[in-house]
């Protein structure tokens, strides 16, 4: 078993160049990926089902494992260095770990069933919980004093809140001005170095850029979806088809948007846009993923094997 695992990892570590576009004739930038690391395989116990990922400047990779109720730290070669957490609602414990972000010194983790943000140091020691009274759907950290969260506003519109390390709110951005129904405001978000927010709507064909004062700078629809599929479930009418699953920014401020059900390759097609919203390229990942994460060194992290495997890729531009 172990031998097979090693062989699998070796095979996965072989450099892989994936040609990536469905619109080769039109794309203005060719983007390809080169696999440099694969953590977790079907026949090992490194990862059971990862949900959140973050990487620091030293090359350490941190993973929230939903089936293991844990936070894990891997070195740059993919070796498990430390594991923390267990099932529970106490300090440093998890029931349904979800989002993860890191600053220079700390890690920030959320749990679907526990309100607030848990803060750990880089040795995975629990430090504190930042209180917040509503469920969060996205989280990004620019520094320990600038933490941005996307707040689910069910049944009303959601908002982005920027707060400091103690949970004191600095600014709020109401990005969705009207109540179009439950969950229509669900977004993934990214924050650039100038303080602009990029939003990708989960159930609408909308990608937007906003400034911190709450002004929408542009809005794009890439999929040509006019009507949102809805279904009555219980007392609510809920959207059923996912347009965009996640969004991340590379080191030049380009947007990487993971497309959902309407894409040619659902959960694999990644649209690359300029900061001004122009479509540049489409990248097709080898396996389906639920999230995209690009670290400060411009490495791309995605899922494979339904979350059992974490892949790290180098982004190559031509």
């Amino acid at each position, binding site marked *: 078993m172990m031998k097979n695992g090693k062989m699998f990892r070796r095979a996965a570590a072989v450099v892989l160049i994936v040609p990536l576009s469905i619109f080769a004739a039109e794309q203005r930038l060719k983007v390809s990926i080169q696999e440099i690391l694969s953590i977790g395989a079907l026949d090992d116990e490194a990862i059971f089902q990862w949900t959140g990922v973050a990487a620091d400047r030293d090359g350490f990779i941190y993973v929230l494992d939903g089936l293991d109720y844990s936070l894990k730290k891997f070195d740059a070669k993919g070796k498990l260095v430390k594991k923390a957490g267990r099932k529970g609602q106490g300090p440093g414990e998890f*029931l349904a770990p979800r989002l993860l972000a890191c600053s220079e010194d700390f890690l920030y983790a959320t749990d679907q069933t526990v309100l607030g943000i848990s803060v750990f140091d880089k040795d995975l020691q629990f430090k504190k919980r930042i209180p917040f009274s509503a469920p969060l759907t996205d989280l990004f950290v620019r520094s320990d004093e600038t933490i941005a969260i996307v707040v689910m506003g069910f049944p009303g519109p959601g908002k982005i809140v920027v707060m400091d390390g103690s949970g004191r709110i600095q600014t709020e951005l109401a990005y969705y001005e009207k109540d179009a129904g439950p969950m229509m405001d669900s977004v993934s978000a990214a924050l650039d170095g100038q303080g602009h927010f990029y939003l990708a709507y989960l159930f609408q064909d909308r990608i937007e850029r906003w400034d911190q004062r709450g002004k929408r700078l542009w809005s794009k629809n890439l999929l040509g979806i006019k009507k949102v599929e809805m279904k009555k479930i219980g007392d609510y009418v809920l959207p059923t088809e996912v347009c965009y699953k996640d969004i991340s920014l590379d080191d030049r401020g380009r947007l990487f948007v993971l497309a959902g059900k309407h894409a040619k390759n659902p959960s694999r097609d990644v649209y690359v846009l300029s900061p001004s919203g122009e479509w540049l390229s489409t990248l097709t990942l080898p396996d389906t993923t639920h999230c995209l994460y690009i670290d400060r060194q411009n490495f791309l992290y995605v899922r494979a094997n339904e979350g059992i495997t974490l892949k790290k890729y180098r982004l190559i531009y031509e």
Partner: protein
Amino acid sequence: MEKKRQKNRTIAAALLFCLVFGMGIGAGNLQSGICEDAVKECFNDWYNQAWGYFGTVYCVMGYAFCKKYIDP
């Protein structure tokens, strides 16, 4: 290998699904529409109903998670 892979996928997805809505589910339910079925059960669950608004938000959060992470 493929059989083992499929088994692992099914087990992992089933377990994660249980985490989302805190309920038991058979592997046979893992198909298109699983999130709709799960959130319906979640809405109808007496415990979540007893929690009123918070129970509803819990179910809706689970639905969003399911759509993003699990729905094929």
